[in-house]
């Protein structure tokens, strides 16, 4: 009864918990955060209405995909991450004038896919990790979509599209690396 337990002032041994692990995971994984940024910027360039749908659909589909990911644990081909970056970068670079339904569909697809990729990478398989990464994706999406709405004219719009071309270029290179590794 008088035996004392450790009182950890700093969570070095326990960690910050699965929610924050999930949050940090997104920010430390270029392959996931870059497509989220590209998709959010693209939605923002399309307009506030697109952005509002995207910030709701993306995290919801992320959670569904993530839950499927850690419950099924079916590995996806290595080229998937390059493919995701390539397509989301192209969307932003080309700034295609797609209808809102198509953009919602694309957001849902990539939300599910990125969430699934996240889910199969989570070592503990806790729903809190998925919620953490989905929350981080939501925050990034809100900030980027809002930024794109603000910068949606003149040379700033062009700068965002240039950034999209960089994400496309990265996607192509990551595709190449994944094919080289096989």
């Amino acid at each position, binding site marked *: 009864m008088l035996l004392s337990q450790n009182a950890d002032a700093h969570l070095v041994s326990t960690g910050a918990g699965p929610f924050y692990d999930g949050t940090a995971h997104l920010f430390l994984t*270029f392959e996931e955060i870059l497509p989220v940024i590209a998709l959010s910027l693209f939605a923002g360039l399309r307009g506030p209405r697109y952005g509002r749908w995207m910030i709701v659909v993306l995290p919801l589909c992320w959670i569904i995909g993530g839950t499927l990911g850690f419950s099924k644990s079916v590995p996806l081909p290595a080229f998937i991450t390059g493919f995701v970056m390539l397509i989301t970068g192209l969307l932003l670079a080309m700034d295609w004038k797609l209808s809102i339904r198509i953009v919602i569909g694309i957001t849902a697809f990539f939300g599910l896919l990125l969430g699934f990729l996240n889910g199969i990478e989570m070592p503990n398989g806790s729903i809190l990790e998925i919620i953490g990464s989905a929350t981080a994706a939501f925050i990034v999406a809100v900030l980027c979509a809002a930024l794109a709405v603000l910068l949606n004219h003149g040379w700033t719009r062009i700068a965002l*599209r240039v950034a999209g071309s*960089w994400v*496309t*270029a*990265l996607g192509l290179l990551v595709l190449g690396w994944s*094919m080289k590794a096989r």
Partner: protein
Amino acid sequence: MKYTLTAILAHVETGKAAGFLSGFHHPISGWDHIAAMIAVGLWGAQLGAPAIWLLPVAFPMMMAMGGFLGLIGVPLPAVEIGIGLSALVLGIMIALEVKPPLFLCILIVAIFAIFHGYAHGAELAPGTSAIAYSLGFVVSTGCLHGVGILIGLIHKWPAGRSVVRVAGGFIAAAGVFFVWKAIS
């Protein structure tokens, strides 16, 4: 008893950090790459909108295509000659203020970008992150284009136009040297 000093590294860059820095350093590791990438920005500034941003968009994307081709093992002959020629041709375009149709400008830049990307593509150091490396060298390439564009903005003044043309001449001369070095 001997006491020897060993390095105590405060920051040990491995994985993503090393990969990004390695990739960032790659395009600026050779004057031939630097010359060509600045030339793309200069030429874009000389041509004006929309080439001023279309050329620096086309170059990284096609450079990545070149890297992709290199990674999957598609053979591409005379890569170093192609890189040298890029500086020569783009330098001439700038020096003579050649303004072909936009699609031709993009085509020229795209073709040369493939050679540059092919050269970079396979040089990933072991233990480094491929995506961080790729991010580093795409960002570095974009920055070099940005430098070219910023310099090229002086084109709006008459004296600036001459300076840009002279810069093109220097780039072309450097291109001659690079081609000669690649051939010999």
